[in-house]
């Protein structure tokens, strides 16, 4: 009896701890219990590469400021071997500075930030730069004069002037004079555009930033053009002459400052890797709070780097799947082949989607069983036999992928997400079961395993479950308490109510 009390006590404490932490996070830290509206959070990883030219190295990079509704959540710097500091200038702009006495091989520096667009508003005010008239050769000056005169004729304001100019350049329908101006500047149209605007006396500046594309690597800095007219700034994308700020443009710096400045290095490059995560709005909000207040108690997985977060997303679902299997085995009494094989299959299903996964599973196991029946005549030792089955499973997977790809079914490519070794053991077990107890037992246990896998899959893909496991990992402690209690469950299984049905007096 004392062990029963102990279990009850330990389980009770575990459940209380888990629930307590969850409630604390809910009410004190403001984590939402329900998955709410989602917000796209972007992770930008900027990578600076350069070749040192000898002597001291100093790299400064302008850091982005929150603009146009974009909000920064988190920043990380990685730069081993470099002295590092962040300098803040009087106007509030920040610069990261890496320094080193000497360096003799190409180096890479990283700066990672997380950001999302909380509100959508414009860029707002910014000091108007002084207009510096361009220095031109006589023939260019004459051409520029005619171009500006013609544009003025067709436009009513500096904004429409700029729009006309940009459209001409973007659509490549320039007249002779304009074409003359841009000739030889194919890779730097923007510089010529700036010259024309300066000549026309229109204040303009560059806006540098990154076009956000999910999963993109090696993205480069892009530049937008900003024109001042009637007390306001107007943005244009010089690539397509579209006015306004593109939705997926993250602004890095405004004005004609350099983003990257490398002293003591050559061939420097700045590239970005981009990842988009969809997170509940409220979670984003609380992350934002944490970014400002690190002292706060934080059990959140969000503290981890992005790749690890993705891994934990999957890992944290396993206890839920395991609970389903425990319930099915202890309370319902379903027989499965291998204790936790159904969870691994279910994890595979999450990657492949249910129907595709089921189909692929049945094909692979079916084909495997068929070929395995031949292997059983060969009297192989267990380890070589299992290895043969593993190879077989991989071959079947490859065949399945290639054939279905040729036929145009891309879904079957996800076959690789099903766990190979587990499939092999399933085939081996089922095969022995078939020989020893006949196909009926194979159907019972195989069906039981698949049923458990499907139920585990369904439980693990409920949005609320995903949200709770990821945002409240401490619920796992409670789950453990529940599992401990289930371990002491001595009542009848549902299947036993059927098994012992003939003990009923009225059926005898």
């Amino acid at each position: 009896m004392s062990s029963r009390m102990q279990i009850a006590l330990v389980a009770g404490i575990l459940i209380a701890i888990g629930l307590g932490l969850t409630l604390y996070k809910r009410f004190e830290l403001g984590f939402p219990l329900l998955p709410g509206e989602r917000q796209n959070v972007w992770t930008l990883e900027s990578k600076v590469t350069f070749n040192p030219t000898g002597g001291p190295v100093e790299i400064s990079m302008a850091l982005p400021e929150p603009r146009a509704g974009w909000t920064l959540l988190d920043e990380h710097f990685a730069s081993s071997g470099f002295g590092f500091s962040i300098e803040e200038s009087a106007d509030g702009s920040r610069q990261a500075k890496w320094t080193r006495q000497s360096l003799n091989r190409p180096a890479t520096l990283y700066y990672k930030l997380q950001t999302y667009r909380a509100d959508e508003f414009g860029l707002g005010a910014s000091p108007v730069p002084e207009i510096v008239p361009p220095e031109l050769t006589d023939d260019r000056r004459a051409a520029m004069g005619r171009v500006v005169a013609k544009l003025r004729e067709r436009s009513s304001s500096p904004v429409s002037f700029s729009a006309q100019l940009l459209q001409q350049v973007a659509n490549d329908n320039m007249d002779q004079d304009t074409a003359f101006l841009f000739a030889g500047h194919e890779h730097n149209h923007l510089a010529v555009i700036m010259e024309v605007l300066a000549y026309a006396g229109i204040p303009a500046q560059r806006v540098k930033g990154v076009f956000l594309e999910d999963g993109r690597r090696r993205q480069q800095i892009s530049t937008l053009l900003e024109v001042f007219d009637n007390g306001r700034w107007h943005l244009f994308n010089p690539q397509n002459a579209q006015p306004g700020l593109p939705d997926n443009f993250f602004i890095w710096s405004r004005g004609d400052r350099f983003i990257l400045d490398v002293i003591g290095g050559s061939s420097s490059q700045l590239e970005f890797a981009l990842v988009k995560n969809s997170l509940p709005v409220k979670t984003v909000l609380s992350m934002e709070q944490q970014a400002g207040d690190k002292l706060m108690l934080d059990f959140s997985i969000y503290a981890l780097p992005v790749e690890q977060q993705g891994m934990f997303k999957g890992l944290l679902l396993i206890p839920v799947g395991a609970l389903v299997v425990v319930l099915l085995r202890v309370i319902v009494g379903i027989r499965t082949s291998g204790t936790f094989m159904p969870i691994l299959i279910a994890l595979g299903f999450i990657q492949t989607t249910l129907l595709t996964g089921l189909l692929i599973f049945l094909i692979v196991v079916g084909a495997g069983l068929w070929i395995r029946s031949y292997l059983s005549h060969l009297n192989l030792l267990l380890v070589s036999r299992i290895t043969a089955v593993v190879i077989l499973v991989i071959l079947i997977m490859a065949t399945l992928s290639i054939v279905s790809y040729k036929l145009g079914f891309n879904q079957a490519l996800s076959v690789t997400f099903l766990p190979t070794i587990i499939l092999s053991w399933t085939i081996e077990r089922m095969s022995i079961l078939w020989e020893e107890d006949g196909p009926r037992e194979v159907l019972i246990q195989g069906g039981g395993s698949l049923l458990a896998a499907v139920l585990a899959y369904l439980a693990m893909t409920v949005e609320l479950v995903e949200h709770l496991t990821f945002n409240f990992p401490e619920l796992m402690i409670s789950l453990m308490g529940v599992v401990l209690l289930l371990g002491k469950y001595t009542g009848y299984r549902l299947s036993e109510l059927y098994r012992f049905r003939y003990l009923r007096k009225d059926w005898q």
Partner: protein
Amino acid sequence: MKFISPRALRELGVLGMNSRNVNYIARSNPRRLFPLVDNKLMTKRIAEEHGLNVPKLYGVIEIQHEIQDMEKILEGLERFVIKPAQGSGGKGILVISERHEHNFTKSSGAVLSLRDVKRHTSNILSGLYSLGGKPDVAMIEDMIIFDPILSHFSYEGVPDIRVIVYRGFPVMAMIRCATHASDGKANLHQGAVGVGLDIETGQSVCAVQKNVKVSKHPDTGYGFEDLHLPHWEQLLLLACGCYEMTGLGYFGADIVLDKTRGPMILELNARPGLAIQIANQAGLAKRLKSIDRLPSHSLLPEERVATSRQMFGRQPSMF
């Protein structure tokens, strides 16, 4: 689908799988004792040490290499059984009942060559029949010629008697009779008939096949109500003796009745199944609890058998 309510099961005192695992196996059977019963070779050796009756062991094959010289062990053996030491559920047991030189006749009548026998042995060693596919050893032992009294009740296989022993007391017993459907195996879930036996007398109480009551053997046609086990006292004593031998608090003893040598222990099971309750149409939990209520004791096997026969005997016949 028909179901029985949990309450009805509780009133009958039926033991469920969860309760068996938690309340009896986990509590009365220390883990370290399991190898004693999971490995039939070890069981046989300690049973011989304790002077308990077991089928004679002719030889053991432990490594694949020894299979080449298997003929030497088989020399002069007219009938024998090859089985895995750690097999489960009667898997991998090869019974040779007749032999002409290199032709071996199975109890079912099928004839095997020496090569077939060697292959079977090789499969045993590679772990084909053992739990979890662990490498195993093969035992070659005497084939039991079962008591002709039982021949009416079994088809192509040896009927074996299962006695559940709790804290040294026999609490429930049944005999498992092979049928054509069970392929000569005494496995209830494969279609063998389970016949509940009265603890006091060894008289049949009820017979079930695949959970359904039957009155006569489906193949031989003999009525189970006439089944009465001889050597009953001796058989119960043998089962109870395994308590002292193994130290297990809850186990099932599988016993066979040999024509000349009487009851012999075939194997012990530290996780005996629950189907015995259906064969007896009686609940185990009730009997286990009445054993728990007995004052602590240091009774001899004879005294425990007497107590059990008195407590659990005289079950009403269900035929």
